[in-house]
């Protein structure tokens, strides 16, 4: 007994020692080897150890620390695995600059290209003569070959691409070039399909807004590159933008160093470190405590303390974030994934949808969920343009909160409901034998949407419409059995777009791939199709504005608001400009500098 207990204690000690050493080992082996076999870059931890701790010291050393809210799965933003906001912030935007760039006003500006134009036949680009790739210290010119490589890889059906919009309109086999700096591509004219359409793509500046280094990536499998670095076949960093990724460690962060060969404005900050802080509350504390110099967080009330912290600039702009309601129109045919219909065919009637829209007080929802941070957020009234865009027309304004009108509309078509707007009402309208009852779906766990739903539910109850809660988990709601199958009545969710109206084409056109509502108007379709292929900006705007006007007449979807995009940074850090799109604040990273 005596001996056995000592044996046990010894074994336990051995196990403890083993575990401790294992923990220490797993900590030291930071980044894994790159998938294509080349050795990993130096671990983030070592670089981080050199970074000064206080903002003042960082200013002196010309370093910026940016808090990243999420870790990433890889830097190749064209792949389905890695098409993430932070992959673009931590590496994509700084290293793979393209012909055009989307600025903070939603306009395309020339970047790598000194000239770019589109005709009904194709696209022509002239590359800046001083555009180079930095590859492990070597200087390699940006040539037409990079354009071709990018196009061919993205268009390749075997690439696990997350999207081909725009690129799929361009013919990858047929192009002409003059020297290394001029190249012309052509729109597809044969083998047209929904996946590879023919004809011009109106948002053409989006094409080639990201370029890949053809020489550095020669011989590599595009599906497997850049899992933990932005580098060439020899593992050394590659970039044509203001910074290159010096190292990245999973779970910890990335270090970016200034690119000496950058063709544009010489970057003022020597080193930018992205530190991953996965918890929103600690992100806010880190900003407040000075551990990081800037953050680009998800908008929420937890950010409120930062508004009144001295030395910090709190900036927010309405983001290109389309928070809206979609109404399933009975059994109307939608995209290919739609197989089911709504539970209540009353939703086929425009008057029912209009009554629902007018019974919801969007402004009070905004005020309740965003409180002191609501700022100038107002209800959105257009289904293709955002409120900050020049072409915005508030077509949906006529459905603004008006419960009396909604009640009158219901009374006109139904019986058995309340006679006045009454919050304690319990009567439900009966319309041609059907009760005015709908199911409301949203992503469960999303408290903002749960709150909106609770408020809308109470408001609809007061005019005699009953709402049943149908929240679904995030990986189910957008899965094949969720909203894409058409199995919903009313759904609240958001679409994040790049600000171009053609982004909504597939969602609003008859039987479009993203059309889950079953909305189909041939007039709207013609206008949307024309707009998506129209290269003249004025004509384009007219097409889309007319389409939206028609849509607002029957309310197939009801825009709610644009979620604000916050950018919070130290006041002594200048040059930061908030960008409403998903391009994010690193769009002009070369202009950042300490005061």
């Amino acid at each position: 007994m005596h001996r056995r207990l000592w044996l046990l204690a010894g074994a336990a000690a051995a196990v403890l020692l083993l575990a401790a050493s294992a923990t220490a080992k797993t900590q030291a082996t930071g980044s894994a080897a790159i998938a294509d076999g080349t050795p990993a870059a130096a671990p983030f931890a070592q670089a981080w150890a050199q970074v000064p701790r206080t903002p003042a010291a960082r200013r002196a050393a010309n370093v910026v620390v940016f808090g990243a809210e999420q870790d990433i799965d890889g830097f190749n933003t064209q792949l389905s695995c890695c098409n993430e906001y932070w992959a673009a912030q931590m590496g994509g935007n700084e290293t793979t600059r393209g012909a055009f760039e989307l600025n903070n006003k939603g306009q395309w500006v020339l970047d790598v290209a000194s000239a770019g134009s589109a005709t009904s036949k194709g696209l022509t680009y002239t590359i800046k003569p001083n555009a180079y790739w930095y590859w492990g210290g070597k200087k390699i010119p940006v040539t037409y070959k990079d354009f071709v490589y990018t196009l061919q890889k993205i268009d390749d059906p075997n690439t696990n691409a997350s999207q081909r919009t725009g690129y799929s309109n361009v013919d990858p086999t047929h192009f002409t070039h003059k020297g290394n700096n001029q190249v012309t591509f052509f729109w597809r004219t044969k083998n047209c399909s929904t996946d590879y359409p023919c004809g011009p793509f109106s948002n053409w500046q989006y094409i080639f807004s990201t370029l890949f280094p053809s020489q550095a990536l020669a011989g590599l499998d595009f599906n497997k590159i850049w899992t933990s670095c932005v580098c060439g076949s020899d593992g050394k960093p590659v970039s044509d933008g203001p910074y290159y990724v010096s190292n990245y460690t999973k779970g910890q962060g990335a270090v970016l160093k200034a690119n000496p060969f950058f063709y544009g404005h010489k970057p003022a900050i020597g080193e930018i470190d992205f530190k991953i802080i996965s918890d929103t509350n600690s992100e806010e504390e880190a900003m407040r405590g000075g551990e990081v110099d800037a953050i680009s967080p998800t908008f929420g009330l937890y950010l409120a303390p930062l508004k009144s912290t001295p030395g910090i600039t709190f900036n927010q702009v309405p983001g290109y974030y389309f928070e809206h309601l979609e109404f399933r129109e009975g059994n109307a045919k939608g995209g290919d994934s739609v197989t089911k219909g709504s539970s209540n065919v009353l939703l086929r009637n425009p008057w029912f949808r209009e009554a629902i829209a007018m019974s919801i007080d969007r402004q009070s929802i905004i005020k309740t969920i965003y409180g002191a941070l609501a700022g100038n957020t107002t209800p959105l009234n257009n289904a293709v343009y955002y409120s900050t865009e020049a072409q915005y027309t508030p077509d949906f304004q006529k459905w603004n909160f008006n419960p009396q009108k909604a009640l009158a509309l219901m009374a006109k078509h139904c019986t058995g409901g309340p006679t006045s707007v009454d919050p304690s009402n319990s009567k439900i309208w009966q319309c041609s034998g059907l009760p005015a009852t709908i199911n409301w779906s949203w992503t469960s766990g999303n408290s903002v949407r749960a709150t909106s739903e609770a408020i809308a539910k109470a408001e609809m109850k007061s005019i005699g419409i009953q709402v049943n809660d149908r929240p679904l988990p995030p990986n189910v709601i957008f899965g094949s059995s969720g909203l894409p199958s058409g199995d919903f009545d009313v759904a609240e969710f958001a679409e994040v777009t790049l600000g171009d109206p053609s982004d909504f084409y597939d969602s609003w056109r008859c039987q479009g791939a993203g059309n889950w509502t079953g909305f189909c108007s041939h007039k709207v379709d013609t206008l949307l199709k024309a707009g998506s292929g129209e290269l003249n900006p004025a004509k384009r705007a007219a097409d889309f504005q007319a389409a939206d006007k028609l849509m607002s007449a029957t309310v197939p979807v009801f825009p709610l608001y644009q979620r604000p995009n916050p950018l919070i940074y130290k006041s002594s850090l200048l040059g930061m400009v908030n960008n409403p799109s998903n391009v994010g604040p690193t769009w002009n990273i070369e202009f950042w500098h300490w005061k």
Partner: protein
Amino acid sequence: MVSYITRRILYSIPVLVASSFISFVFVSLAGDPLANLRANPRTNSPQILNHLKHVYHLDQSVFVRYWYWVESVFTQKLGVSLLTSQPIWPDITRALGHTLQIVLLAQVIALFLGVAVGIFSAIRQYSVFDYTFTTVSFLGYAMPTFWLALILQIIFVDIYLKWHVRIFYTSGLNSGVISSTWSLDRLQHIALPVITLTVVSFALYSRYMRASMLDVINSDYVRTARAKGLPERLVIFRHVFRNALIPIVTVSALQFGALLGGAIVTETIFTLDGMGYYFLNRLQASDVYAVMAYLMIVAISVITFNLIADVLYGFLDPRIRYD
């Protein structure tokens, strides 16, 4: 004994296989890995979805997909995630390392405290000490971990806001400095999760120890020892304590095995890069291979530690014989 162990291991293999298959079916059904792409109007083109369906094997029956996973596990060291094309082993071992540190610390502290309190409660039965700690144990056992974690978080955030001093950190594994495993910064960060996990385990161990001590104290051979005239101290520490320790050893082995899966809720609240957090994260992304890797590690650890607990019991208690 050896035959017992081998028999147990052999029995567990079919259980493990069946469990892995059922888990795989469940995980595959629980979510759609293409959900994020469908949500975005730019990425839901049929060609892209079909191509990815093929890459993720979603166009094949669940048996074929299970077989692909088994192949991947054995040829690629726990598999390579279909979604991210990244090997799973480095990520999961990193997470396992972090969880191990927290769980080990919590268990060791809980064991020491629980055993000590249990002994003294038993020796001084019905005293104030005993009643106080019985109440404390009840409280600790009854407290849901997520609630305790939240309260600790609220308290320490309040302290920081009021007095601008950081005693313990309320989230993450390290602050501005990436810390090594046993640095002060790391300890400050894992203090609150360790406290949370210690409380429940401590309650369990102290109750068990007390009950076990009382059982032994009232047994015949202890009465004999006392009758022989041995001093009380010797009676307690040579006879009672060692024998009373046996069930604790087995219970702690079971606890450890169960906790290796990472206290999911504690890790979520404190945003720790551990097993539980990894699991929840990958589950929400419908990353089947990563979730299966986690489940297999947890299942094996539970089975192994159950076996260790049973073997230890037989090893330490001469009255128990396994045939």
